[in-house]
């Protein structure tokens, strides 16, 4: 009798959860693309002062509402400029904001130009910028705003706020949600009732109403670092409720597991049991939930700044850049004021959505066990 060969269990190398996750995640091209785009954006935010040709507050008194420069490659003499060049422009009609190029001159775009001094990452002092043109000319690749500030530079500086404030708020909010949800589900009793009633209260107030009401607690005009903190506090305060309720439900089922009883029998403190043995089991859910929720946190800052109660001028954020785009004049003649920050917001939200979908698929244990989905 020839027995059929046993299923080749040992054909696969032993796989850690991390490897299983990565194998699954790699298959999702959109998620990888989203992750790569976000990596690019966050790197750009980190090096914003170097990448931006100008400072975020630097105004050009002659060239306000300048449209994006038309970058050309071959000048009138037929010479090729590898980095491109621009023609100097002159305002011919203020009413229609028509600018005319002076074709006789070519201003080449250069790499590593000296410009405004800045401090990067709070440490490096420099005046070196990745690219730019020689003064007195100015380069507006994505146009200028009504104060003559470079929109590209402001989007880069603005990303430092807009891309991070949501993340910090989310991190605090989810920590609170995890802890309170864990305590609520594990301890039960009056603590459970108290926490759950509080979450019901918070969840019963429509989100934006709560956000703008909370924001009023802090003075409207604050130095930018304090505004940043105020927004973080507001976001942290509202977001934990939904998560706490889900975590509580998960903890209620986990606490009946035998290993929890074992940990208790060994005399571990209750907080330690929650933190070491119960909450880690909710981790994959929390990671996915966080990735999917990040866009709404980022948008909350954008909405606050758009409403004029978030990041204040002259500091840049994607939200207060949108606010500039709202005026009737900007709507009619300066579409770049809307399209530039709008595209940045759109791409960021989409990248997080793709990444979240990919993470969800990859961390779903049923899919990992089943191999192909």
């Amino acid at each position, binding site marked *: 009798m020839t027995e059929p060969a046993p299923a080749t269990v040992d054909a696969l190398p032993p796989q850690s959860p991390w490897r299983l996750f990565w194998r699954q995640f790699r298959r999702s091209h959109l998620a990888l693309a989203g992750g790569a785009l976000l990596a690019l954006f966050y790197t750009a935010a980190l090096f914003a002062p170097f990448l931006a040709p100008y400072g975020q507050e630097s105004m050009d008194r002659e060239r306000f509402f300048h449209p994006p420069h038309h970058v050309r490659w071959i000048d009138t003499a037929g010479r090729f400029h590898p980095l491109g060049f621009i023609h100097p422009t002159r305002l011919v009609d203020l009413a229609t904001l028509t600018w005319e190029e002076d074709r006789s001159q070519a201003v080449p775009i250069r790499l590593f130009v000296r410009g405004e001094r800045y401090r990067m990452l709070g440490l490096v002092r420099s005046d070196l910028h990745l690219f730019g043109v020689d003064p007195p000319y100015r380069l507006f690749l994505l146009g200028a705003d009504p104060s003559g500030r470079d929109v590209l530079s402001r989007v880069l500086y603005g990303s430092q706020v807009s891309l991070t404030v949501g993340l910090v708020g989310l991190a605090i909010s989810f920590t609170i949600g995890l802890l309170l949800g864990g305590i609520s589900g594990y301890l039960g009793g009056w603590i459970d009732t108290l926490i759950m009633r509080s979450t019901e209260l918070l969840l019963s*107030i429509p989100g*934006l*109403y709560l956000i703008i*009401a909370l924001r*009023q607690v802090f003075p409207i005009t604050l130095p930018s670092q304090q505004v940043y903190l105020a927004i973080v506090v507001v976001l942290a305060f509202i977001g934990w409720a939904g998560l706490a309720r889900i975590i509580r439900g998960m903890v209620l089922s986990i606490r009946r597991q035998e290993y929890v009883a074992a940990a208790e029998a060994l005399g571990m403190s209750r907080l330690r049991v929650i933190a070491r043995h119960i909450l880690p089991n909710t981790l994959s859910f929390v990671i996915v939930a966080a990735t999917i929720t990040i*866009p709404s946190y980022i948008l909350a800052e954008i909405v606050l700044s758009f409403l004029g109660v978030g990041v204040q001028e002259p500091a840049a954020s994607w939200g207060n850049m949108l606010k500039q785009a709202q005026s009737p004049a900007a709507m009619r003649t300066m579409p770049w004021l809307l399209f530039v920050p709008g595209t940045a*917001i759109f791409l960021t*939200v989409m990248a997080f959505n793709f990444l979240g979908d990919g993470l969800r698929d990859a961390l779903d244990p049923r899919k990992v066990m089943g191999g192909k989905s």
Partner: protein
Amino acid sequence: MRTYVLRRLLQVIPLLLGISFVTFVLLQLAPGDYINTVAENPMISAERLDAMRREFGLDRPWYVQYGLYLKNIFLHFDFGESFARHQKVFVILREGLLNTLLLALAAAVVTWGLAIPLGVWAAVRQYSWLDKGLTVFGVIGLSIPEVLSGLLLLMLAARTGWLPVGGMHSLDYDQMDWVGKGIDLARHLALPALVVGLTPLAGRMRQMRGNLLDVLRLDYVTTARAKGLSENVVVFKHALRNAINPLITLFGYTLGSLVSGALIVEIIFAWPGLGRITYDALNARDQYLVLGSVLMASFVLVLGNLVADLLLAIADPRIAYD
């Protein structure tokens, strides 16, 4: 069932009490009050400011103010008076709520009127180029927040002049006959409703598609096909009814997010709804108007959830509340 509804309705009272308390405390924590915003006008003397403060009761400790506020609500159903508008809060909010509900209703028509047919279409042609196209469209739609789509449509209106750029009525609204009034209102409503309605469209469409695909795999659908019924009858008469059920419930749950999502759109399009009133009142520190509008918005949200739970019980006989 009746006791369940009654219990849920009674639970709303302590909830609203809690919300009013939290909102009141937040307003007290905020620096300054309405008088401070009035004091920005140098024409008003300090004595007048003090008199106003006394008149509005702002000179008393906050717990006394809160107690009086609750007392007036419970005894007279009086939500106080707006400082800035010299009008009863209830009257202002009633109008604002009606405008917001009108916007939410129009938005819901946009969402569901598109989501159901598109979802069905994608499901019956699963994996076709159309299905994939709708998926891509859905992902893009999910990534455009209301503040962005609102500004984009506003720009379209400003540059083309096809539709008004904001407000609810034209200047000559009062001189129009009722047909003209209807058209005028619809023209002002179109863009905000489109913005509020398009945001949840992608999600609803995917749900409709998924539901219908699940139902189409069930045995009774196979039976219907085996009987020799045409595909149209199978899909639209047999499968669709069961697939739409879960969406009915969602309708109630989305009421809250509609009210919340409408806030930013109301501000962009100057639509005189609850959100805009709240925002203006917060900026003016118009205490009782803020309290009233937060309560009103929360009430709509809670009521929407209750209606959704009840609809679920009606649509699905397996669920019984006691």
